[in-house]
């Protein structure tokens, strides 16, 4: 219902064309009855939009294929775009026909299209990755025998613990020896092989529990002749005396972190069937230039000798393979150097599943 209070709103709607026919009739009836409002129609200003238009708005449009609509309008200023679209096979059949026709009519456009077509890169097929075999992986099977042997060993360890607590006897079981591992052994019972400066889990005091690394053992490699005089050897020997847990082993590794240290990384004997690390692995031992800040996010990092990189790459793959990725060789883009690292976190988890044995001197 139009009245004197809302007449202005109706007038505005009328000017903007927003009134229905019924409301228009109602408005005119009201103006006839109240002619003083008729002049409002003449007084309302008429806004005229400035003549500003967006050029090339066609380029903003999208066709159904998602291409700019500009492809549908071949013009002199977009010939390069058409040429690229043609070589990229982005033209639809009609566009292709059109472009082919124009090329046939104009040598310059034909040449332009040929020049763009010539920018198509051709892969150099003779450049191939020749060391593919080094990238291959073998599935790592956890054999029943392995786990059963761990189970037996764990039962044995528990039995020994129980017996010890009851009888206060002093068992002399060595975890490493029980597992038939020469690389993890009490320092008192070091064999000839240990002269290669094995990092050992040492003999410890009574009632002290040693968790052996039955997955992998790491040993430094030095000649027996050098061992007596090499300060590095003495250093590791000192470390061995203190070793009674994994952290100490890590620390002893870090303490060896000086130039010229060679590490031979031996695998769990139970993995030998699958293990590409064979007896010759020591021939491919890492020469470590330095250990890098030791334990970072449960990993220990080292820098191998850069002069023997080729060797390390294949060796690194074998290591990763044998250790299920727990020891990795890699390239650190930030430092632009090769690194290897031991994932210690996984070691420690698996360590809990491994043998616990009470040893004493």
């Amino acid at each position, binding site marked *: 219902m139009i009245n004197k209070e809302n007449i202005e709103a109706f007038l505005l709607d009328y000017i903007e064309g927003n009134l229905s026919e019924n409301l228009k009739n109602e408005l005119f009836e009201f103006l006839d009855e109240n002619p003083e409002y008729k002049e409002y129609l003449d007084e309302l200003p008429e806004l005229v939009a400035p003549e500003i238009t967006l050029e090339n708005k066609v380029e903003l449009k999208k066709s159904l294929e*998602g291409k700019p609509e500009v492809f549908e309008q071949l013009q002199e200023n977009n010939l*390069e*775009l058409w040429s*690229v679209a043609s*070589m*990229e096979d982005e033209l639809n059949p009609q566009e292709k026909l059109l472009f082919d026709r124009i090329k046939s009519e104009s040598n310059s456009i034909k040449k332009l299209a040929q*020049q*763009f077509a*010539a*920018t*198509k*890169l*051709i*892969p*150099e*097929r003779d*450049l*191939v*990755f020749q*060391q*593919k075999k*080094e*990238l*291959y*992986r*073998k*599935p790592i099977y956890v054999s029943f025998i392995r786990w059963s042997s761990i189970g037996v060993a764990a039962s044995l360890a528990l039995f020994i613990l129980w017996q010890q607590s009851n009888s206060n006897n002093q068992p002399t079981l060595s975890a490493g020896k029980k597992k038939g591992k020469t690389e993890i052994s009490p320092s008192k019972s070091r064999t000839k092989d240990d002269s290669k400066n094995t990092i050992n889990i040492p003999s410890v005091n009574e009632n002290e529990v040693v968790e052996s690394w039955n997955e992998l053992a790491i040993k430094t490699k030095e000649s027996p002749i050098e061992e007596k005089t090499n300060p590095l050897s003495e250093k590791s020997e000192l470390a061995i005396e203190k070793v009674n847990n994994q952290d100490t082993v890590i620390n002893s590794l870090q303490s060896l972190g000086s130039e010229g240290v060679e590490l031979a990384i031996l695998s769990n004997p139970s993995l030998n069937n699958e293990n590409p690390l064979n007896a010759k692995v020591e021939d491919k031992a890492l020469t470590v230039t330095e250990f890098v800040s030791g334990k970072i996010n449960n990993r220990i990092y080292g820098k191998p000798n850069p002069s023997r990189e080729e060797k390390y*790459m294949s060796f690194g*793959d074998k290591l*990763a393979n044998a250790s299920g*990725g727990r020891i*990795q*060789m*890699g*390239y650190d*883009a*930030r430092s*632009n150097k*090769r690194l290897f690292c031991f994932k210690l976190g996984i070691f420690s988890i698996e360590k809990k599943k491994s043998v616990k044995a009470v040893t004493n001197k």
Partner: protein
Amino acid sequence: MTTKQYNESVDAHSDGLLRFAVKSLRDEELARDLVQEAYLKLWTKLETVDAQKVKSYLFTAVYHSIVDHSRKTERHRNYEAQQTTSFDELNTSFDLQQHLNEALQRLPEIQKTVVMLRDYEGYSYEEIGEITNLSEQQVKVYIFRARKSLKEYIVNIENLVG
């Protein structure tokens, strides 16, 4: 993804990855390192990577390593700056692929990357966008600019050699 699929991906993609890395870095040894690094990364993530997307995963890994390396060594190429290079250094004989490779090395990194992924590997714009973290439209723009630059380089040499 299984170990078998992993090994198949070595056969299927290691060559392409190497070519991509070599052309990007111009250092074959480093390129091999990055390819090995990509496969090592894949191996550690084997259970989470979809076998259907392994190629994209590997190229993305190599691409990111290339970018990291370029940032580290400040080897970004600026095409405009390179335009001032004297043509005197160029061979007088016209070998299109050779000159195309020269022109490729003068492209900005991102243009070089997208055009190589396009031509060497036949990736779609969408796939290139996934690898390089660009929109499809941005990929198109970079490919167009790259082609234009390559074309201009070749034409200049054509004119020079006559």
